[in-house]
């Protein structure tokens, strides 16, 4: 086992069973290496929050039996269609699905980042999310014209885990234009990051790179994990592994197919 494997495993150990775990949307820094370690460990009862949506990683965790609930504005395999294990688990009543809508999840994370109790969001009226969710409701705008407005509570995950193109030696992580990752991280109690590589020096002093950084004070642990987001894409470093995602989409249509695919994915050391 290489040192970086050890680190990813240690990092995944920080995510306790039952944790409320926020994960980036597809192709936005999904920490697949950590997800793999969680499955290898046999993590249970995770309460996932998509940022604001999810894909391969959520489907994988659900299929592997690690998940109690999913809060997301959408879960899919993108161009490959529905997320088969996620859909099957919802249909079988095996997980709780907490449907959201993107701007409401963003608002919840922003409120979390600012430790505000709530934030308003435009629209959402008439939707069944508003009807079904006891934690969303309509108040009167306290300002003229005192129109009804939907408010949602802060989202404060136990852990936000993400994968990024690089960290620097000072522990700053470059997330580029995925600004919502900063928000999700700052809203969380604990922040775990895997990266492609360690960049020498301190990127805060690089005026071009600084605006894309999630800086060291927000981060609890960093581990090296080359291609740690694969098979999902990590712009600008790499695109999706189409062959692997195709094989997943096809295999995961059935329970048996998924189990076989997962065994291959975990490899011979995969069993916890």
């Amino acid at each position, binding site marked *: 086992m290489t040192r970086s494997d050890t680190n990813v495993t240690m990092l995944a150990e920080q995510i306790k069973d039952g944790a409320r775990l926020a994960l980036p*949307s597809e192709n*936005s820094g999904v920490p697949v290496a950590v997800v793999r370690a969680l499955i290898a460990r046999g993590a249970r009862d995770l309460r996932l929050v998509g*940022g*604001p*949506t999810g894909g391969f990683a959520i489907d994988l965790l659900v299929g592997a039996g690690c998940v109690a609930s999913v809060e*997301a*504005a*959408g*879960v*899919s395999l*993108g*161009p490959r269609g*529905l*997320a088969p294990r*996620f*859909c*099957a688990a*919802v*249909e079988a*009543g095996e997980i709780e*699905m907490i*449907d*959201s*809508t*993107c*701007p*409401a999840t*963003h608002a919840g994370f*922003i409120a979390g980042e600012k430790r505000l109790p709530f934030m308003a*969001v*435009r*629209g*959402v*009226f*008439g*939707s*069944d*999310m*508003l*009807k*079904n969710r006891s934690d969303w409701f*309509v108040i009167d705008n306290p300002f003229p*014209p*005192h*129109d*009804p*407005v939907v408010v949602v509570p802060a989202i404060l995950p136990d852990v936000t885990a993400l994968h990024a193109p690089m960290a620097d030696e000072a522990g700053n992580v470059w997330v580029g*234009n*995925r*600004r*919502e*990752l900063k*928000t999700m991280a700052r809203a969380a109690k604990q922040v775990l990051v895997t990266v492609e590589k360690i960049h020498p020096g301190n990127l805060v002093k690089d005026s071009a790179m600084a605006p894309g950084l999630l800086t060291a004070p927000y981060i609890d642990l960093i581990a090296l994990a080359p291609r740690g987001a694969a098979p999902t894409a990590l*712009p600008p470093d790499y695109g999706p592994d189409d062959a692997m995602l195709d094989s997943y989409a096809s295999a995961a249509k059935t329970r048996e197919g998924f189990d076989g695919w997962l065994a291959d994915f975990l490899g011979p050391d995969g069993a916890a």
Partner: protein
Amino acid sequence: MMREYTKEEFLIATMSGLFGDGRFMVSGVNSPIPAAAGLLHEHQQPGFFVSIHGDPNRTPFVDGGVEPFDMAAQGRLDTFVFGGVQVDGQANINLVSIGDPKRPKKRFTGSFGAAGLYYLIPNIVLFFPSHSRRSLVQKVDFRSASPQAPEGAFRQGGPKWLLTDLCLFRFDPATGGFELASVHPGQTVAAIRDATGFDFVVPKDVPTTAEPDAATLARIRGDVRDGLSVAYAQFAKDCIKQPGS
């Protein structure tokens, strides 16, 4: 040369005609026809620009997932196309599930940004390319987005059109229902009634949806096909004819 076009080319041309005089459209995940219609509209409406998910040259966002929603709130996002599993006669759309949502018969993706954007984007086109009583229903099983708000609610946009493979409906915000705007070539009002699970208004004269002219088809098979191939190479190849054909 009549009818010398694919179903997709017809829908691209028709949808493009619904995009009006706005300036900015975002086409979401898995939306080749809306993306193509946006590209076509760029030629028809100077100043119009379509952002295409999956095309890095057409992704002008630099602040992550929040930015398009803030842009919509700012009135900078004029046009959006929503699909779904079901749409009902009040323009409620369902992207979530069939059956009881707590224990659905069939689960789908989820609502994405629709519930918010439904109040912010002036020109929303609902696109259901498989017109049937299973998709155009009396009442959706789950409301992912609804135009039905309490009185006085802020609203700067909403659904305007419902385009299917059989016809085009116009949404009337005053009545909260649909009116048949045109029937596609070869279709009849009766056939559309048959295939539709909700009631709608039928005006005295229902025009036939215009067919794309030669210049439009040439444009679709030229610049649009090229531009679309960045994000949707397979679709462009399979569903749009070769240039000059």
